[in-house]
């Protein structure tokens, strides 16, 4: 079973030596690793910023960064987490690595473009970091106009960063769509594709169809600042609400860019660790497309208090409830898959369970905000902050780590220490709820978001939350340390440590550069274990 001994071809990690062989690689697996390293660096950077936010809020009154410093840290935390971590995380790392393997291909359709999009990503990241050196930005990650056109801070760099990162995201999506259409092995029709591939396919369409809108909108801010074209300037009868429309036309679907791939990973993990064929394969596959479609219909629920027409608010409120349906379809199908399954509570499965729980909390509290009347009450409170951390971090973020634990043996050919991974997960899960749940309660009690200071009656919520942030960070550090140790000292992993049935488990761990010498022949669905794997 030892991959290194069994396979004649060197694995992708050893295919070339030196930094240059990595920086010029067009191997989708190596590009996935490049993304993994870069994304983790930016993630840890943003975690530090998040810790600073929680430290500032540990007690009422200004602590150590002050109001303006707080605004800038908050903005940078948002920009980094959203544009540099969650949006690219799962597609760029695990999509790049596993999408071609899962459809039996040796690479994506445009390998050089794939590398180019990594360089776009790095370029965008450097622009974002550059804005720190120039003193930071205080607009919030949404760059709401007219403030973003007026502020004395340098908004050029972060806006250009977002624009460049948008192109990185578009090129990845473009690559995936063409790859799925053109490089799928002939023996794999659409409805034999793994659900992760379905989720990435749907995500890629959102990336193509929504990202350009925000790209041009951000450029309009720059034109407004440079030339005063007046398109969004109220003094020239421009309409700032129009900016919000265009911004959310992208940025709402963007939350599905964050969470759809995560749902795809849950759909991979749940059947593997329950030893059962997934329940309702077609419904899960179609619901991914449905989420992508309906997700483009609901952006206005971010703007209920912005002065839209009443009819528009009602329409968007109604449409917002619709998007809960395909998400519900998925959750019920996962639960039905677990029912009477032979469940193994390994770490990846724990993360999948955490996803289902946390995302459900996030989803249900989302319905509260989708309802017009309750949203007026909780708008711009820390309730919203709690909600989107539950959906994004509890969704996309948790499954990024879930996927890391699920595919780690395949990617690096080593296994990690299971008991440490579980302890890290426990800290992560407890810390997460401790950090974000009090914010729901504080928000309901009226705690506004984006303030460095608060009244003493909110003290208890903020104290618990700040302590939770330390537990969460301890969990993350323990988890990463465990994986880092496994990288060098872990036991060798076989081809198929979990007993998965998708194509990536048929190639050696780690895979050679050309994983398929001949196109594999797929004779069954991706989750049909029963027949030939009875022995495990």
């Amino acid at each position, binding site marked *: 079973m030892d991959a290194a001994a069994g396979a004649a071809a060197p694995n992708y990690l050893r295919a070339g030596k030196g930094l240059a062989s990595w920086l010029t690689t*067009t*191997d989708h697996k190596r590009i996935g690793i490049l993304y993994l390293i870069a994304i983790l660096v930016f993630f840890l950077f943003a975690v530090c910023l998040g810790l600073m936010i929680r430290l500032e809020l540990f007690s009422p009154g200004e602590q150590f960064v002050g109001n303006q410093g707080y605004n800038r840290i908050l903005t940078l935390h948002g920009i980094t987490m959203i544009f540099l971590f969650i949006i690219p995380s799962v597609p760029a790392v695990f999509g790049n690595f596993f999408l071609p393997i899962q459809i039996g*291909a*040796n*690479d*994506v*359709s*445009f*390998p050089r*473009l794939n590398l180019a999009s990594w360089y776009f990503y790095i370029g965008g990241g450097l622009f974002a970091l550059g804005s720190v050196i120039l003193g930071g930005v205080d607009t919030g990650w949404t760059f709401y106009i007219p403030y973003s056109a007026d502020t004395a801070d340098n908004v050029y760099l972060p806006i250009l960063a977002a624009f460049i990162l948008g192109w990185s995201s*578009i090129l990845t*999506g*473009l*690559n995936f*769509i*063409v790859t799925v*259409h*053109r*490089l*799928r*092995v*002939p023996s794999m*029709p*659409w409805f034999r594709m793994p659900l992760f591939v379905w989720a990435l396919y749907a995500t890629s369409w959102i990336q*193509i*169809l*929504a*990202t*350009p*809108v925000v*790209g*041009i*909108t951000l450029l*309009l801010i720059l*034109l407004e600042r440079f*030339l*005063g*074209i*007046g*398109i969004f300037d109220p003094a*020239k*009868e*421009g*309409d700032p609400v*129009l900016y919000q*429309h*265009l911004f959310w*036309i992208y940025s709402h679907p963007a939350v599905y860019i964050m969470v759809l791939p995560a749902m795809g990973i849950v759909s991979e993990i749940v059947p593997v660790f329950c030893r059962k064929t997934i329940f309702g394969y077609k419904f899960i596959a179609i619901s991914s497309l449905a989420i992508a479609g309906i997700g483009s219909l609901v952006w206005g629920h971010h703007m209920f208090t912005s002065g839209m027409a009443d009819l528009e608010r009602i329409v968007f409120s109604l449409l917002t409830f619709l998007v809960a349906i395909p998400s519900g379809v998925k959750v019920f199908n996962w639960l039905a898959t677990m029912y009477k399954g032979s469940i193994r509570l390994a770490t990846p499965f724990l993360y999948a369970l955490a996803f289902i729980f946390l995302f459900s909390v996030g989803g249900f509290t989302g319905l509260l905000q989708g309802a017009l009347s309750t949203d007026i009450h909780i708008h711009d409170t820390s309730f919203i902050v709690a909600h989107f951390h539950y959906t994004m971090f509890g969704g996309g973020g948790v499954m990024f780590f879930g996927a890391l634990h699920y595919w780690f043996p395949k990617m690096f050919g080593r296994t990690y220490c299971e008991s440490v991974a579980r302890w890290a997960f426990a800290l992560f899960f407890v810390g997460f709820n401790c950090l974000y749940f009090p914010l729901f309660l504080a928000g309901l009690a009226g705690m506004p978001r984006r303030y460095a200071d608060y009244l003493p009656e909110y003290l208890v919520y903020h104290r618990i939350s700040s302590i939770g942030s330390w537990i969460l960070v301890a969990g993350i550090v323990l988890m990463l340390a465990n994986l880092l140790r496994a990288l060098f000292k872990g036991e060798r992993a076989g081809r198929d440590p979990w007993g998965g049935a998708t194509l990536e488990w048929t190639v050696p761990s780690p895979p050679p*550069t*050309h994983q*398929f*010498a*001949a*196109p594999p022949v797929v004779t069954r669905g991706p989750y049909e274990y029963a027949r030939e794997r009875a022995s495990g």
Partner: protein
Amino acid sequence: MADGGTTSTDLHGAAGAAHAGGYDPMAAKMGMWLFLFTEVLLFGALFIVYGVYLHGFTWQFQQGSARLSIPVGAVNTAILLTSSLTMALAIAALQRARPARARRLLFATVGCAGAFLVIKAFEWAGKFAHGVYPGAAFLLEQSKGEIVFFGLYFTMTGLHALHVLVGVPVILWAGRRIRSGAISPEHSVFLENAGLYWHLVDLIWIYLFPLFYLIS
């Protein structure tokens, strides 16, 4: 669906063909179309902005439009349409294995692009001379809707002109690759994709022309 079937076999026939730069014109074309989708939406967002303000400032937009010269706009439209024709004919000539003719037609396309840009430059210069540009004192005295109209006019025609400008080296490069044999009747997808890009630039102008010049 059937489209994945045949060519995938072809690609996997040669080991790792995709990695070795296997030639799949359908994939390249599909990628190009998806890229064009992003261009459509880039401009599409601006057209939404235009629509919203036309709805709010109908009268002011008509006034702004009256400051633009219809003949100039119409001539530029005809030039771009003609350049699209020469582009399509260039691809047709290459497919009929007449590379010299294809290159001549590509040069004609570039000539049209140059003429379009020169006319556009004179048009903008004329506007600047009359004090019609973002932030100009004269324009700021006009009705508010007109400021927005010209803000959009310069943004959208400017972005469009930028796309024309980018198209020129792409087409010239295609011409060079025809001469070197890198583009041949069997390997024509680079030229076809350049053509798709060029037609899209034309297509956007087809909407820009009536919306800016013909609403007075």
